[in-house]
């Protein structure tokens, strides 16, 4: 009895393959309204973290294209395109068009078109992280590019950023919880002034400061009893981060080498063409040679394009992801640390309350002329009250911790599946592209080699 998108493998085959890569498999237990698109569901209820995956719908071949292939039952489609430059007295910046098409009921209209700048995306990400500290929010492309003198308004940079922003919004749209966020809806639909005014609301600076201070204090204190699964998550994330960074760098290097190879290769064909002019008998084979060189150049250029526009961005996205993962694990740790701190404080208070009935304070109270029994009872009441408060607080913290753990576990499992699908698809497609490259390069070579062999002498 679940509303919204369902990964039911009994529906059309084309659909199930696409979806199951994106959504978690649902538990058969019908009590759970886990992935309801009901917008009132934002916090509070706990998640069942034991998501089972039905083997039947595990993805074998997820076709990874530049444009996301939308499964039929997806009900929201977001595109980012048309970068435009805006010049004001103070600054110059780029806005991107964000186009939304949706059949969701919580949206008043079925189509929206707005313009957003990087700042706005950044705001959205922060809001989502605020609301869901232990969910894995998709990464944004970097604010600045450190290495190389990359002009902020360089075309390649803008293109790459545009694609990454497109990815960002789509990943949110695919996320069962994040896509229900009110902030997300406003981001997609509000006019510029509406968005600006909405941004001003929400928890003020001071309260956010308070959160930060608590978080820092908790970090300093550290977690004492981290559950084993989060330990192994931490280890994995650290190792994975290193590997992704390496792969990112290697891919960049390959692109660079191929570009340089292409530059040199481009000089060959003109020389063969020049040579044709001096020859008679050799003119034909030389012309064929020229066409072979030309074809090789074209194919190599396409290969470079593919690597730059398809493989590299996904690797880079996962590099950025690992930062998010580390942050999320840290936040979870902080919550646990806070919980542990409060539990310890309670324990201390309890022992204190026993020690309260010790001599010194009684002596003081009798000095002051109060009835020791009365004073003791007053103090006891006071303590009981404090302890009760602390207990309530701790219960809330415990709930919060359990909630955090479960959301993280759930989202972690989802993230892992996505990662596996995405990277498998990316590398498989890359291998396919390389095969294509060789096949296409070979074609004119056959022409050159076949008519003449053994016809000589």
């Amino acid at each position: 009895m679940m509303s919204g998108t369902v990964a039911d493998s009994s529906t059309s085959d084309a659909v199930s393959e696409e979806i199951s890569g994106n959504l978690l498999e649902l538990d058969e237990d019908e009590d759970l309204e886990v992935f309801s698109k009901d917008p009132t569901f934002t916090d509070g209820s706990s998640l069942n973290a034991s998501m089972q995956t039905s083997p039947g719908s595990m993805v074998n071949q997820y076709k990874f294209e530049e444009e996301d292939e939308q499964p039929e039952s997806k009900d929201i489609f977001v595109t980012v395109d048309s970068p435009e430059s805006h010049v004001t007295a103070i600054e110059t910046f780029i806005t991107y068009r964000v186009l939304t098409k949706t059949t969701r009921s919580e949206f008043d209209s079925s189509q929206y078109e707005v313009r957003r700048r990087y700042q706005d995306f950044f705001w959205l990400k922060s809001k989502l992280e605020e609301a869901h500290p232990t969910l894995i929010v998709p990464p944004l492309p970097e604010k600045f590019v450190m290495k190389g003198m990359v002009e902020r308004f360089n075309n390649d940079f803008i293109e790459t950023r545009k694609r990454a922003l497109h990815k960002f919004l789509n990943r949110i749209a695919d996320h069962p919880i994040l896509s229900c966020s009110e902030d997300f809806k406003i981001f997609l639909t509000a006019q510029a002034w509406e968005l600006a005014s909405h941004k001003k609301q929400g928890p003020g600076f001071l309260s956010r400061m308070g959160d930060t201070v608590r978080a820092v204090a908790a970090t300093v204190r550290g977690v004492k009893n981290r559950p084993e699964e989060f330990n192994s998550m931490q280890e994995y994330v650290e190792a994975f981060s290193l590997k992704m960074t390496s792969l990112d760098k290697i891919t960049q290097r390959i692109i660079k080498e191929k570009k340089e190879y292409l530059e040199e290769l481009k000089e060959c064909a003109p020389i063969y063409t020049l040579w044709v002019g001096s020859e008679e008998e050799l003119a034909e084979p030389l012309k064929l040679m020229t066409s072979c060189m030309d074809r090789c150049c074209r194919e190599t250029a396409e290969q470079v394009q593919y690597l730059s526009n398809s493989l590299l961005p996904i690797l880079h996205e996962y590099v950025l992801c690992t930062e998010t993962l580390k942050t999320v694990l840290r936040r979870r740790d902080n919550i646990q640390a806070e919980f542990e701190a409060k539990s310890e404080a309670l324990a201390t208070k309890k022992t204190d309350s026993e020690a309260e009935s010790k001599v010194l304070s009684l002596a003081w109270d009798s000095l002051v002329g109060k009835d020791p029994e009365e004073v003791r009872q007053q103090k006891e009441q006071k303590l009981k009250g404090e302890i009760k408060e602390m207990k309530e607080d701790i219960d809330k913290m415990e709930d919060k911790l359990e909630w955090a753990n479960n959301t993280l576990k759930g989202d972690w499992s989802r993230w892992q599946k996505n990662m596996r699908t995405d990277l498998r698809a990316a590398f498989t497609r890359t291998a396919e592209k390389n095969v294509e490259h060789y096949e296409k390069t070979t074609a004119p070579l056959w022409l050159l080699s076949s008519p003449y062999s053994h016809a000589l002498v």
Partner: protein
Amino acid sequence: MMADTESEEIAVIGNTDLTPSELENNIKNAMVEKGTHLLKRLEISVAEAEKRTGKNAVSMQETYTVYLIETRAVDGASEAASPAPDSLWRRYSEFELLRNYLLVTYSFVVVPPLPEKRAEFVWHKLSADNMDPDFVERRRVGLENFLLRVASHPVLANDKIFYSFLTQEQSWKEVVFETGFQAKADSRLKALNATFRVKNPDKRFAEMKHYGDELQSVISQLLRVRARVADRLYGVYKVHGNYGRVFSEWSAIEKEMGDGLQSAGHHMDAYAASVDDILEEEEHYADQLKEYLFYTEALRAVCRKHELCQFELEMAAQDLTSKKQQREELATGTVRTFSLKGMTSKLFGQETPEQREAKLKILETQIEEGEDMLKEKNTEAEEFVKSAWVDIERFREQKDRDLKEALISYAIMQISMCKKGIQVWNNAKECFSKM
């Protein structure tokens, strides 16, 4: 004939499983089939190379390489195992000496070139060191090629000095010097002078010289670019080796993806390693181009020799004409041309009849000699043009054949490289899809 291949792009026709070395053998076989008497009865090869040390002309220790020339009598009739080959060792400088001898002695022949003295057009992985084993090996092949080219040339194959180069271990050098060929060599200055001042060279030779220049320019450019391309290609392949390493490391932290990643990593390593063989084969194409690069020099030399012959003919004719004119002037007493003698005789008086008689007699002799000389030079020039043009045509056909083969074997090599690439990446794709 081969019409059906033109339409399809992926036609699989023709023997494309030939390796470049097999094609090279085809060239050798072609030479044998052309059948000079020499090659019909003698098998020639440069089998080995060795380092030697010794004292050179200025008594300094030097290291040099010697090459083993093996010759074996070809007995077409008998099916018995061939007898053991005769062999002797020669240095590169001796090959040079042989070639210089041939250049001078057969100036109308486009003499086959030697492999390069120093490694040029290298890309970074190849060493430019003459002692480098790869360079020595390629030189060995080049020297063998040179000997086979000479042995298959209709004129050069019959040369005795060449034959003793192959067979006579001792004192071959003395024999060569005894021919006195060095005295017959034309000085560069003389040749240059002729080139500038010749009035009526045969147009065909001028065109050939021009063609030689163009071919040299084109091939040099190609070789240079090719070296840079090889360099870059090497880089591209080798970086993929890093994928192999990282996939391997990554597979250690993954559960389901581990196997796929691990095996994919191995294929990346294989891909990176495959470039060494590819570039070695490609070197072969470069060597074939290089041979013709050096051939252009020999071609131009023949054209220059023609210019020299023609120039000498023109000079002889001019000389004869001027002598005849002088005779006429002496005989008739008129001075048509300005000369110091004429002036002085005007100033200081005429010569005596006896003096004039004597002069006339000398002139007559000179004119007679001049006419003989002119005839000689004329014949020389005509014969040279005839035999040189025959050899140039032969060279042209050989060049067309060989370069066509070179282009084809290059294409075949590239196809094989692509096939390997397809195989590796298909394998990798399988592994990735199992991730």
